[in-house]
């Protein structure tokens, strides 16, 4: 669960898939599906890798920042003419000098002094890692804004790992069809990760809220219901202001044995078949049929983000000053997560895949 000491702040990440999610393996396939998705090598359960989460979030923080500050950023020349030995110092001294007072309401993280030279290219991979961080004609990562300082950058003269560490998002609750409607399966070890102690069922048996169904089908698997599970509270995945984002009632949840979880998940993934259409004839193109698998809509994921306060590193290198505060990075993540609800994550996002609803809980 969340923890905060003076150097590391942990944020819990809950994500609800509002579309099927497809994080591909680059066309690497074995078996019946052409476009397979990333899985954990040990459990074989699909996941959203930390690198996919970090890459998209980096882009979304840039988008969120630039929409408010793009026309307020000073010219490079103005920064260069400012007093100071390093670009960092010049940026601190300039400090949004000509920002109209009406814009003072900009949130603190957007006013981070490094953002004065943030560019869209601060997202994604750096185009010009061979240039110095204070190079004027540089078109890659600027090396100064909250994104470069928070997510890391690498230039000819200095590399910085960043302050944000992302874990993978693992499946916490997975929706399956039963004759009693859709239920979400989980395991006792997964519940333990979010602080719920619940006994695991015996081999090949499951536990439900009622516990008296006799048998229940989870997709094609027909399993005996062993007994009731004991947690009675709704699982509310919500932010601090009790603004509930999504809720599962105890009736929605079924606890399955650890060894069956992977089988049930992999048997109930969405597999979508697509084909190219010949525009002239309107018929399917020969040899163009392909299948893609995806984690289905309704899946709930869990992971964590750690924010490291690396003030201790400022002494290492003058060029690293100033570093953003952990609260500023946390706000940057919170204020930009809404992009996951529109632009999404992973592949085929233009074709009904990829949207997530994310909650960050300190």
């Amino acid at each position, binding site marked *: 669960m969340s923890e905060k000491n003076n150097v590391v702040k942990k944020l819990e990440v809950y994500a609800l898939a509002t579309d099927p999610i497809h994080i591909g393996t*680059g066309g690497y396939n074995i078996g019946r599906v052409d476009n397979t998705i990333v899985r954990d090598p040990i459990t074989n359960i699909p996941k959203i890798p*930390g690198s996919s989460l970090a890459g998209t979030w980096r882009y979304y923080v840039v988008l969120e920042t630039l929409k408010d500050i793009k026309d307020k950023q000073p010219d490079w020349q103005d920064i260069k003419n400012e007093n100071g030995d390093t670009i960092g110092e010049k940026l601190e001294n300039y400090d949004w000098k000509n920002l109209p007072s009406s814009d003072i309401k900009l949130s603190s993280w957007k006013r981070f002094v490094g953002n004065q030279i943030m560019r869209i290219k601060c997202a994604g991979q750096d185009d010009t890692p*061979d240039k110095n961080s204070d190079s004027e004609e540089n078109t890659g990562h600027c090396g100064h804004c909250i994104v470069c300082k928070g997510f890391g950058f690498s230039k000819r003269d200095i590399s910085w790992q960043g302050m944000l560490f992302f874990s993978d998002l693992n499946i916490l609750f997975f929706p399956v069809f039963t004759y009693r409607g859709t239920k979400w399966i989980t395991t006792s070890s997964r519940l333990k990760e979010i602080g719920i102690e619940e006994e695991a069922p015996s081999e090949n048996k499951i536990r439900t809220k009622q516990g008296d169904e006799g048998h229940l089908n989870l997709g094609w698997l027909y399993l005996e219901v062993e007994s009731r599970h004991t947690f009675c509270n709704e699982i509310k995945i919500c932010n601090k202001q009790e603004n509930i984002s999504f809720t599962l009632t105890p009736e929605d949840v079924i606890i399955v044995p650890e060894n069956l979880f992977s089988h049930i998940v992999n048997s109930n993934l969405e597999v979508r078949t697509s084909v190219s259409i010949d525009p002239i004839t309107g018929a399917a193109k020969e040899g163009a049929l392909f299948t893609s698998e995806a984690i289905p809509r309704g899946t709930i994921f869990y992971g964590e983000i750690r924010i490291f306060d690396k003030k201790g590193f400022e002494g290492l290198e003058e060029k690293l000053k100033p570093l953003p505060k952990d609260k500023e990075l946390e706000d940057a993540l919170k204020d930009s997560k809404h992009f996951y609800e529109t632009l999404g994550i992973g592949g085929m996002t233009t074709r009904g895949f990829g949207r997530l609803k994310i909650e960050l809980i300190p």
Partner: protein
Amino acid sequence: MCWYKLVFKQKQPIHIGKFEWGVVSETEIFIPGWTMWGALVNAYMIKNKAKDKNEIQEIQKDFETITNFFPSFDGETILEPKYKDGKFYLGDYSAEEFRYKYVKADFKTAVEPISRKAKDEHLYEFEYIIPEFYWIGLIKIENEEIKNFFEGKKPEIFIGGDTKYGYGLLKLEDSKEAKNEDLENWNLSNDGKPNNKTLKNFLEFETNIKFEGELKLIPELDFRQNTPVLTDARYFVNVGSTVDSSINISSYKIYKGKFIRNANSP
């Protein structure tokens, strides 16, 4: 001022950069001392802010007398490095068997942020060791504050590559004073000199050394800028090799997993 045995539990997959074959980033199958040194200095500095560059250099020095770290299933006995029939082994596993069983790979690509499509020619394969192990090694501690760092709230460290994306997390499971048999087992004397057995740390090569095993060119790189700067490169006798007993051990001392001749000390 004594040797400590550190036992880390691997919590996430780890990638210890070894070699790049085209688009494949291969992982090493044990943790070299210099990699562990970097991770420990990093973790210590996050917790204990340094005042200036001098203090940072002092901290870096405090962690220098450290061995390589090897995998263990039970947190007690390591998979010993050795050469058998000309092949490198960890315990009973040849390097190939170990990789087959415990090393997996992910395929990844960079994405163009604006078009959000996969970036051309950026697909790469990234190997990692799955989290099935404890990692054990020794460190000599001469500073009370460093001792407290290990004995207080058990530190978590991030090691190797892609640590921002769900790789590299190790949690200290146990740290205790190393006994004489531990030092013996790691082929070390109390003052950090090698004894003449199968090596668990690299040994700087000299033309008069007779050994059975392999020779490696080991560069030490400074990663603080985009193009890493070479700070040191020498030939070493690889871990697992057996060294002839005629070697004059008094002239060597351990430094970040490598026995270096005193005259060549950094």
